[in-house]
């Protein structure tokens, strides 16, 4: 139903302009660079925009138009939307601001008028007051931020949906910088029509999306249950990571009952997320921390974690962090102790954490992981590999990756330090092993994987 927003054959940009630095120009430039379909600039002032024939009205375009992008000032939006409706257009992204978000009577009235026209002509609308759609696969890109200011990430498996445009563009830019692949990004602004529920349903069917990130301020009144129902279904096949903004309670308001005063807004959202299999990121850092583990790791079947480290101190920190998150760290059974003793120097510690100590080398990690990963009492392994020690090289990356691929159990790594640590992290992550810069962040990420795995196992999506 929303297909025309993401895979249109033709697009009209209403409010296209030649003026440097203007939204109407950046969007035409974006489409020219990456969109293979037909592009029709619309603006009565021009014959031509950036080498493309420009039309006075969308109605003058001699061919069918799948999608219109509207960037004209708010008071003109109803007129151009009506023209699009008469032309038979079924999808509109309204970038323009100046509607209900202004808090003015005029803004509210305009927004209602736009909604009415959309309903009358059966046009689906994203926006107004938004950045619209960035689709790394189809080349649809209504983010009006020029390439040199906001880099575009490569094609990849993550899609995200954001009420805030600024957050969406910052996240895209950030993901581009870290080379994290994106499928689709949608900023829906005032959501007079297309909302979280519609987008979740669409992304569920989108084959290039494997994980969905959502930034939510508020769900539309009355849509909460449908949102939960949809999320429950989608989460059974694709993880959903939500960041909820506006967490502070409005409990100060006079409430008719005790319960209402305590509920605030956030507590109810939290419960709803939990009931729907949604993973909540509690901070900005967590959004990507959790996403990368959910994207890359197999399901975690139980809560027993083993730690293999070259740094005793980090092993202890990690033990604290894992215990706080509710994980169990099994003690090493006698037969494994014996096995490990026979292959490790006597000064290594074969409890859990297994401490390979500062004179560890790649080989030592390999032989231990090889014995540890297949054990039935190991549900996940965290490898602490501080690269400052002399015996470690990049061969360890291949060792870890080979063993992880062979045994298919959740495996995370921790690497702390400067250039060498960053390089090590990049090498491991390129092979699908998520790496964290602190024990606490690794523990939180593993917890998210555990919760999601339990949801998926319970929902029967995976046995």
């Amino acid at each position, binding site marked *: 139903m929303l297909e025309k927003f993401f895979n249109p054959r033709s697009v009209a940009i209403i409010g296209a302009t030649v003026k440097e630095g203007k939204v109407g120009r950046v969007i035409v430039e974006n489409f020219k660079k990456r969109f293979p379909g037909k592009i029709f600039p619309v603006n009565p002032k021009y014959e031509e925009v950036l080498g493309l024939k420009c039309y006075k009205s969308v109605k003058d375009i001699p061919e069918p138009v799948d999608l219109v992008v509207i960037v004209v000032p708010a008071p003109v939006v109803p007129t151009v939307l009506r023209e699009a409706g008469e032309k038979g257009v079924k999808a509109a992204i309204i970038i323009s601001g100046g509607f209900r978000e202004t808090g003015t009577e005029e803004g509210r009235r305009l927004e209602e008028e736009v909604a009415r026209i959309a309903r009358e002509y059966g046009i689906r609308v994203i926006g107004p007051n938004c950045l619209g759609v960035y689709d790394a696969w189809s080349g649809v890109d209504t983010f009006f931020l020029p390439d040199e200011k906001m880099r575009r990430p490569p094609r990849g498996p993550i899609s995200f949906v954001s009420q805030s445009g600024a957050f969406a563009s910052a996240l895209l830019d950030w993901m581009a910088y870290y080379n994290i692949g994106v499928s689709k990004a949608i900023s829906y602004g005032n959501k007079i029509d297309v909302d979280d529920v519609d987008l979740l349903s669409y992304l569920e069917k989108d084959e290039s999306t494997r994980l969905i990130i959502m930034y939510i301020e508020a769900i539309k009144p*009355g849509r*909460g*249950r449908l949102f939960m129902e949809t999320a429950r279904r989608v989460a059974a096949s694709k993880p959903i990571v939500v960041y909820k903004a506006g967490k502070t309670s409005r409990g100060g308001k006079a409430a008719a*009952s005790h*319960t209402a005063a305590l*509920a605030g807004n956030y507590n*109810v959202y939290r*419960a709803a997320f939990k009931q729907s299999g949604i993973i909540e990121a509690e901070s900005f850092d967590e959004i990507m921390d959790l996403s990368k583990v959910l994207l890359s790791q197999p399901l975690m079947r139980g809560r027993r974690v083993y730690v293999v480290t070259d740094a005793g101190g980090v092993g202890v920190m990690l033990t604290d962090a894992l215990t706080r998150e509710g994980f169990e760290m099994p003690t090493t059974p006698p037969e494994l102790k014996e096995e490990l003793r026979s292959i490790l120097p006597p000064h290594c510690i074969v409890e859990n954490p297994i401490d390979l100590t500062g004179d560890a080398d790649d080989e030592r990690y390999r032989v231990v992981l090889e014995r540890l990963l297949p054990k039935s009492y190991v549900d996940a392994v965290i490898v602490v590999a501080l690269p400052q020690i002399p015996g470690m090289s990049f061969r360890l990356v291949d060792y870890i990756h080979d063993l992880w691929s062979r045994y298919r159990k959740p495996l995370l790594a921790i690497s702390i330090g400067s250039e060498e640590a960053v390089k090590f992290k990049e090498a491991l992550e390129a092979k699908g092993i998520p790496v964290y810069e602190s024990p606490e962040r690794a523990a939180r990420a593993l917890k998210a994987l555990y919760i999601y795995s339990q949801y998926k196992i319970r929902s029967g999506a995976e046995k």
Partner: protein
Amino acid sequence: MSAPRDIIQRALSEGRRKLLEHEALEIIRLYGAPVAEAALAKTPEEAGELAAKIGFPVVLKVVSPDISHKSDVGGVVIGVRSREEAVEKAKQMLATVSERAHGARITGILVQKMAPPGLEVIVGGLRDAVFGPVVMFGLGGIFVEVLKDVSFRVAPITIEDAYEMMSEIKAAKLLEGYRGSPPVDKESIAKVILAAARLLEENPEIESLDLNPVIAYPDKALVVDARVILRK
């Protein structure tokens, strides 16, 4: 007694936004929540009779659509131990209330079996603008008032959800018993939570409810006070 629909319709037809306490207790009982035994008396003499039937000690509470803080106007008497005392205390209570809450309409006197001390918990419910019916669980007193240690679920819920709500609060260990006391009857509390969820689900006229306190014991839980608010 009447069905839930009748209780709500009667309140609405009388222009009330709040159920009277005996109605609130009855409606939650009809949804399967264990409720402290109670009955409504029209006169002090009837209060004596009902008290004798229920068994002592009892609590007497004034029931009035015009009074929301009963104890502030002398509308609650606890620890009544005989029929004669019930009649006498009921008379005194009505006199004090009519003095302190002048002109308040008096529906009657709620005679309620006095619940022995136990672990006080709170079950609540409200209708959220986004998610619809929502239920809440927490421990009474400072846990709710100061620490706001509560958990929520969007209805409808299952019994597993109710158990999860109990285990989610920070003070969950208190439900397991402490200082030698045995664990409380969680199944009974779960019934109260489920009743609150269903009550909201099936009666769109209800805006919110507070069951506070619900007193939990090793072998049961009892709703002692109930407040049900209807929508404007």
